[in-house]
C-alpha cells in the first residue's frame, strides 16, 4: 500500500469515528462557524465607524480575511495529530508505537485525525471570499485563480509547518505549549489585516521570520492590483507563497532532529 492509500485509510477511519456522533459534530461545526463569524462582525463594526484603514476598504480586507481563514481551517483540520502531540503522544509514550511502525512518523500523525468540525471556519472563509469577490467585481481569470490558489496552498503549508514546530517542541517540554497559539491563531488574527497596518518590526517579522505576510498578503495585493507601497518587483511578489512551502520543509528538518532526540516517557 502506498503512502497515499494508507493516508486515505487513516482518514476514512477518522471520519467514520467522528460521524458516530452526528449531533455533536453538527453543533461543534456550527459553533465554529458562528465564533469565526463574530470576528468578522467586529471588523464590520470598525469599518462602519472609520470608513477605511490606511486606504484599504472593507471589501479588500474581506479578501485577506477570507484567504487566511480558508488556509488555516485546512491546515488545522489535517494537522490535529501535531496539535495534540505533546499530551497524546509524548506524555503517554504512544510515540513509541508510531516509531515501531515501518512508515513515516509524519504520515502517521497526519493520519491521526482529519478534524471535520473545521468545516465551520472553512465555510465562513469561503463565504467571506465569495462576498468580497462580488463587492469588488473581481473577474476570475487563470492568473487570479492561480494567485488565490497559491496563497491558500502556501498558507496551508506555513500553518502545518508551525504546528509541526509546536509538536517538535514537545520532545523537550513534554507538554504542548500554548505559546504556539501566538503563531497559529495570532497569525490568523494578524493576517486578517494588510501588512502595512502594522509597525515596521512586526511587518518584518511577518515577512522574514514567520512568512505569513508572504502567503496571505502579497498574493492578494497582486490579485487586487492594489497600489500598495511595495518596492519589490512583481515576479518576486508572485513567488512569495513559495516561502510557505520552504517554511514547511525547514519545519520537517527540525522535526527529524526532534525525533532523533526523543526519549520515551513510557512505562
Amino acid at each position: 500500500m502506498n503512502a497515499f492509500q494508507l493516508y486515505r485509510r487513516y482518514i476514512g477511519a477518522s471520519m467514520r469515528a467522528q460521524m458516530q456522533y452526528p449531533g455533536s459534530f453538527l453543533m461543534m461545526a456550527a459553533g465554529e462557524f458562528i465564533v469565526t463569524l463574530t470576528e468578522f462582525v467586529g471588523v464590520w463594526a470598525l469599518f462602519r465607524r472609520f470608513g477605511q484603514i490606511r486606504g484599504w476598504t472593507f471589501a479588500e480586507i474581506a479578501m485577506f480575511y477570507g484567504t487566511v481563514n480558508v488556509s488555516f481551517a485546512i491546515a488545522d483540520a489535517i494537522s490535529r495529530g501535531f496539535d495534540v502531540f505533546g499530551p497524546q503522544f509524548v506524555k503517554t509514550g504512544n510515540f513509541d508505537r508510531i516509531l515501531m511502525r515501518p512508515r513515516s512518523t509524519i504520515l502517521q500523525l497526519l493520519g491521526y485525525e482529519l478534524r471535520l468540525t473545521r468545516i465551520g471556519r472553512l465555510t465562513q472563509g469561503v463565504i467571506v471570499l465569495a462576498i468580497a469577490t462580488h463587492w469588488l467585481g473581481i473577474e476570475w481569470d487563470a492568473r487570479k485563480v492561480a494567485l488565490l490558489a497559491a496563497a491558500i496552498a502556501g498558507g496551508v503549508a506555513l500553518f502545518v509547518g508551525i504546528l509541526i514546530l509546536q509538536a517538535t517542541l514537545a520532545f523537550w517540554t513534554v507538554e504542548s505549549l500554548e505559546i504556539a497559539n501566538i503563531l497559529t491563531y495570532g497569525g490568523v488574527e494578524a493576517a486578517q489585516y494588510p501588512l502595512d497596518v502594522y509597525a515596521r518590526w512586526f511587518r518584518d517579522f511577518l515577512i522574514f521570520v514567520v512568512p505569513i505576510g508572504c502567503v496571505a498578503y502579497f498574493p492578494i495585493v497582486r490579485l487586487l492590483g492594489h497600489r500598495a507601497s511595495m518596492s519589490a518587483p512583481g515576479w518576486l511578489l508572485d513567488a512569495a507563497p513559495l516561502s510557505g512551502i520552504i517554511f514547511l520543509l525547514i519545519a520537517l528538518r527540525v522535526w527529524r532532529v526532534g525525533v532523533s532526540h526523543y526519549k520515551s516517557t513510557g512505562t
Partner: protein
Amino acid sequence: MIRLRPYLTVFRMRFALMLQYRAAAVAGFGTQCWWGLIKVMVFAAFFRSSTAHQPMNFAQAVTYVWLGQAFLALLPWLADPEIAQMVASGNVAYERLRPLDTYFFWYARAMAWMIARAVPRALMMFSFACVVVPVLGMGEWRLRLPATPESAALFLAAITVTVLLSSAIVMFVNLGCVVTLSERGVNSLIVPFILILSGNIVPLPFFPNWMQPLLFAQPFAGLVDIPYRIYFGGLTGWIALGGIAQMIAWTVVLGFVGHRALRAAMDRLQVQGG
C-alpha cells in the same frame, strides 16, 4: 442563617489548586501580550485613517484592549471542567448527598477558579502594558491609569461585581451541562455571545449608535464594557453607578433563576455511568 464555612473552604481549596498552574499562566500571558499588540496596532491604523468623531479616543481604545487582555480570565468561557467530568461519569449524584446547597457550592468553586486565574494574569499584564510597553519606546500604546481617583474606585466596585456576574453565568453553563449531559454543546453555545456582546472582540461603543441602549442593558456588557469604560472615564457619575446597578441587577436575576433551575434539574437528575 446559611452556614458560610463550607463555601469559604471550597473557595480556598480551589483557589490554591488553580495557583499551581503557573506554566499555563505564563504561556497564556505571552499569547495575550501578542494579541494585545496586534489589536492596538490595528486601532492605531484605524485612528490614523479617519478624522471622523469616534465614541472613544485612541488612548481610551488602547486602554480598553489591554484591560481586556488583563481580565480575560474573568469571562465565563466554559463550564467547570470538573463538573462536566462529574456529569459524564455519573459522580454528580454525590453532589446530592452533600448537606450543602449545590448552587452556592458550585458558585464558590466558579468564583475561586476565576479569581485565581485572573489575579496573576492581571498583575503580569498591568506590568507589561503600563511599564514594559513604554520602556520599549511604544509610549502611545501603553495602558493608562484610571482617569480619576473616582474612576478608580468605581472601577474596583464594578470589577468585583463582574466576578459575581460572571460566576452566575458560569452557573448557567454548568446547568446546561447537567441538563444536556455534556459540556460540549453549551460551551460552544456561550462563546459567541461572550465574544460579541461583552465587548471582547470590539468595544461595544463602536457598534452602531442605534444598538447602544440595547448593548448597554444586556447582561454581557457587565463582563467587559461597563467596567472598562468606567476605568478610563467614559462612564462617570450617575451613569457609572447606573451601569454598576445594571450589573448587580443581572447578577441577582441570573442567580435567582439559576438557583431554582439547578434545584429543579438536580431533582430530576439523570445519572450516567455504571
